[in-house]
């Protein structure tokens, strides 16, 4: 017995000691640390040869040069291209996130046709041949019935060869219904034509101005070419240049300005005219470049004397006079127009007033001033030889009424598309082609727009992403994204020179997608006849190279073509548009005591395209928390409704209702609510979908009678504790 116990004991003790001294435990410990350092489920990025490839970013109209770092065939980082005329090495938050879009899970990976109900998200992968067959058959049928005009196309922009190919296709096919996403461009073009009597666009010599007066333009919130504007703002700081930001809300731009002047929303035009009046009255206006002033001077002085303007704008008369004098006495003063990112049109009255203000400084087309220059018209293709079917279709009026009747000056009235589809149009729309546009997210009164889309018999989306509009489509023919394709990128965005960038494929197409230009050429050829004849190129690259002609080599080498010595469209302006009426906010004061104004954030794309996870991660927790969206409200207004920081409330406008949470902000005028643009996506994935509220669902278009454009700057609203 005892012996047993002893031996057992010594066995146990000896065994323990032995194991402890053996290498076993040490080996196990070592392995444990190594294993925990490379868990199989933590990715290890493969190494490889590093190269940088330059291209042009197209995620916004900014036109920045980018330099993409690659490891073997993988793109791993997007950086700004140093030495580039627009951004010289810098880059914005959106451009930095490009790779998450390229490799992101919301890409449309191959052509697909709808098999479920509309918007249900049931799709069937199909081959490109089948996709082409479906499209051409559809288009041919309609055309043969002599209804070519019932087909419409909506693109994000109308400049560059790809939009030009769409326009050309529509012309050869026989439809007058090409449309462009609404934006500040619309009113800019129209105003330039009205004042300068010629086609062109404005440019702003921000780098050389010595006094900047901004009517709510978000010069560090995404206005114009964002990176260029950031650099300019820093330059202003270095040179101690007075920058006056007029805006109801303390935006980031207002915070960067040397002076922020809060103003009653929607009264910017009155202030501009008030300042003009002070300048004229004090004889400090330079009328050299302005004709037609005499006929209008008396009205101006009578209707816009400081006291009156102070009434409307809520700005002290003394302040108005002070600003007017500072602005007029500066050597190279510059006034900016277009709210926030300038992504929505403003009224003709406001645009004209600000442009005239620039003219009254005698600084038009001068260093540091506002310019009016023609767009680079490098796309010189022979006119389309239309057959009878096409001519007949082209003779029909446009669905949106642009270019006729009271809208003679408007080229596109995309904001009226929904109404015409919902019954207001001259004829029913049978097919809509959508490229680089997401109207089901950013068009005002989005629900109304979606209802209209639901009525369109056949929708084709060329989007690369599963966005809200693609979700409504019947046929998906996904385009490459910008990092996978060649494309010319004409840059407007307020630049004073003509500039064209070139997008180059830095990676091979990741999915079964096709270049939109290619798709158009092939569809045309498939349809044959005069349509095919209008597209003589073998492929898009040939088309692009031929079109760019002598510019091609420059673009291939440097990635950008710049023409600095562009002649202005005209040297002086003819006063116009000042009798245009002001655009009021929708809704009556009694049932909607508050005002809701959308604001732009550089961290969000304002409906332009789906934000990447990186961008959403950078968004503050006073803008989104979980899926809750916040509105900014002055503490006074909030306590009036009995709301505290973070409380839930129901926000109601004449157009809709939404559950929001409130963020108390001292930087916003009492009585005004601000909501950021770009949230409330219903498409894309869990990193974006359902976060916040889409402000466009709460705001309806308000037509500027003098242009037909949607010039809504806000809407009346009410807020109730939820």
């Amino acid at each position: 017995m005892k012996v047993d116990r002893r031996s057992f004991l010594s066995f146990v003790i000896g065994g323990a000691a032995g194991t402890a001294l053996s290498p076993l435990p040490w080996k196990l410990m070592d392995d444990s640390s190594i294993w925990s350092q490379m868990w199989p489920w933590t990715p290890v990025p493969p190494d490889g040869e590093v190269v940088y490839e330059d291209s042009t970013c197209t995620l916004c109209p900014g036109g920045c040069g980018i330099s993409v770092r690659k490891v073997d065939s993988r793109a791993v980082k997007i950086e700004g291209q140093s030495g580039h005329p627009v951004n010289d090495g810098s880059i914005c938050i959106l451009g930095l996130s490009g790779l998450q879009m390229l490799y992101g899970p919301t890409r449309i990976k191959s052509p697909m046709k709808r098999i479920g109900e509309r918007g249900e998200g049931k799709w069937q992968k199909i081959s490109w041949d089948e996709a082409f067959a479906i499209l051409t058959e559809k288009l041919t049928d309609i055309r043969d019935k002599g209804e070519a005009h019932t087909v419409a196309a909506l693109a994000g922009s109308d400049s560059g060869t790809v939009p030009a190919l769409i326009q050309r296709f529509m012309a050869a096919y026989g439809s007058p219904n090409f449309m462009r996403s609404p934006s500040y461009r619309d009113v800019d073009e129209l105003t330039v034509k009205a004042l300068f009597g010629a086609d062109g666009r404005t440019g702003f010599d921000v780098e050389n101005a010595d006094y900047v007066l901004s009517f709510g333009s978000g010069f560090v919130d995404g206005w114009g070419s964002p990176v260029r504007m950031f650099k300019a703002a820093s330059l202003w700081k270095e040179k101690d240049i007075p920058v006056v930001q007029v805006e109801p809300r303390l935006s980031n731009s207002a915070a960067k300005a040397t002076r922020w002047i809060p103003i009653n929303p929607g009264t910017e035009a009155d202030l501009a005219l008030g300042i003009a009046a002070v300048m004229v009255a004090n004889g400090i206006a330079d009328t050299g470049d302005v004709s037609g002033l005499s006929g209008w001077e008396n009205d101006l002085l009578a209707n816009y004397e400081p006291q009156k303007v102070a009434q409307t704008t809520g700005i002290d008369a003394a302040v108005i006079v002070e600003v007017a004098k500072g602005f007029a006495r500066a050597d190279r003063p510059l006034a900016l127009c277009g709210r926030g990112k300038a992504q929505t049109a403003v009224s003709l009255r406001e645009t004209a007033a600000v442009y005239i203000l620039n003219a009254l400084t005698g600084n038009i087309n001068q260093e540091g001033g506002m310019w009016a220059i023609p767009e680079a018209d490098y796309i010189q293709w022979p006119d389309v030889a239309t057959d009878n079917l096409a001519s007949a279709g082209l003779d029909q009026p446009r669905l949106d009424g642009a270019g006729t009747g009271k809208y003679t000056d408007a080229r596109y009235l995309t904001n009226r598309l929904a109404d015409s589809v919902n019954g207001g149009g001259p004829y029913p729309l049978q097919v809509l082609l959508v490229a680089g546009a997401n109207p089901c997210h950013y068009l005002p009164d989005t629900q109304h727009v979606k209802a209209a889309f639901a009525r369109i018999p056949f929708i084709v989306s060329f989007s690369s992403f599963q966005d809200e509009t693609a979700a409504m489509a019947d046929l998906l023919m996904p385009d490459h994204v910008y990092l996978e394709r060649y494309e010319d990128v004409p840059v407007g965005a307020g630049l004073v020179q003509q500039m064209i960038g070139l997008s180059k494929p830095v990676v091979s197409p990741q999915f079964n997608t096709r270049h939109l230009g290619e798709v158009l050429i092939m569809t045309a050829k498939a349809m044959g006849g005069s349509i095919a004849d209008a597209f003589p190129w073998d492929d898009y690259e040939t088309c692009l190279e031929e079109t760019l002609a002598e510019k091609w080599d420059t673009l291939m080498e440097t990635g950008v073509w710049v023409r600095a010595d562009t002649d202005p469209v005209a040297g002086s302006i003819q006063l116009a548009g000042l009798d245009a009426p002001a655009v009021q906010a929708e809704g009556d004061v009694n049932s909607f005591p508050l005002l809701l104004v959308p604001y732009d954030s550089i961290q969000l794309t304002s409906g332009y395209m789906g934000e990447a996870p990186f961008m959403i991660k950078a968004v503050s927790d006073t803008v989104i928390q979980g899926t809750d969206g916040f509105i900014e409200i002055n503490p006074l207004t909030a306590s009036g409704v009995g709301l505290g920081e973070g409380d839930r409330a129901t926000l109601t406008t004449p157009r809709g209702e939404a559950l929001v949470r409130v963020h108390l902000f001292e930087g916003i005028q009492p009585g005004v609510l601000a909501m950021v643009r770009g949230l409330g996506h219903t498409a894309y994935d869990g990193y974006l979908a359902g976060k916040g509220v889409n402000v466009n669902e709460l705001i309806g278009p308000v037509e500027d009678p003098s242009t037909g454009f949607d010039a809504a700057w806000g809407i009346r609203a009410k807020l109730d504790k939820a």
Partner: protein
Amino acid sequence: MKQAQTHGTPMKYGMAIDLDKCTGCGACMVACMAENNIPFKEDESDKRVSITWMRIFKLTNGKSFPDSDICYLPRPCQHCEGHEGHSPCVSVCPATATDYSRETGIVSQIVTRCFGCRYCMGACPYHARYFNWWDPVWPDGMEKYLSPDVSPRMRGVVEKCSFCFHRYQLAKNKAYLDGERRVPEAAYQTACTQACPAGAIVFGDLNNPEHQVHQIVKPDSNNGNRSRNPKAFRLLERTGTNTKVYYLSSREWVRRAGDNYLAHEKTGQLAKLHH
């Protein structure tokens, strides 16, 4: 503390961030995420479990409309030198998983040695340290953009801004091959500095009079490296963290927000620094 690995005066990399220029756009945050393989989750709105080596704080002057004012303050790791390299975090890490380099002045983070006790997080007054509460997961296909220069961190360890140390290593190797004694100023710039569209961040060697950052900051080595530039300040300077990220602002309320002051104390005019 690691001893200097190169001869000659050691370097002291640091930043000068101009808050007059900073717009709060967040490009620096995203540049950092893209450069350093920083993971993301579906919901990143709880900022206390959201890994952002660079984080933007929004400061307000506390006045009411219309006198209110805001200012954004980008916060990378401040690469505290503390007293002779005893930065708050380095001195507390029991496993020497974070270290102060006397060669560069950079506070490193050895994620493969960190065992996740999180003492360093408690020690860092700037909340510059982040714990991997979750496994890093990239949505299908997105792991394609991951950079091999910075290995993704596993769950359960702490990470933080490294001043893009991998960029220093690349630059150092290149300088060596080019036969240069020192890494040229332009050859080593951080991802956030490079990206910033406002040019608000200046990065370089605080010890090198030729570097822009030195010329802006003019550090006073006889006074705890405090800046001689009246516009400059450091966060919580008086605690003696002795940071190497300097901030510039022309606004007094902003400079005052950078440190704790008793009501009667004048901004920037403090007694001898702690330590």
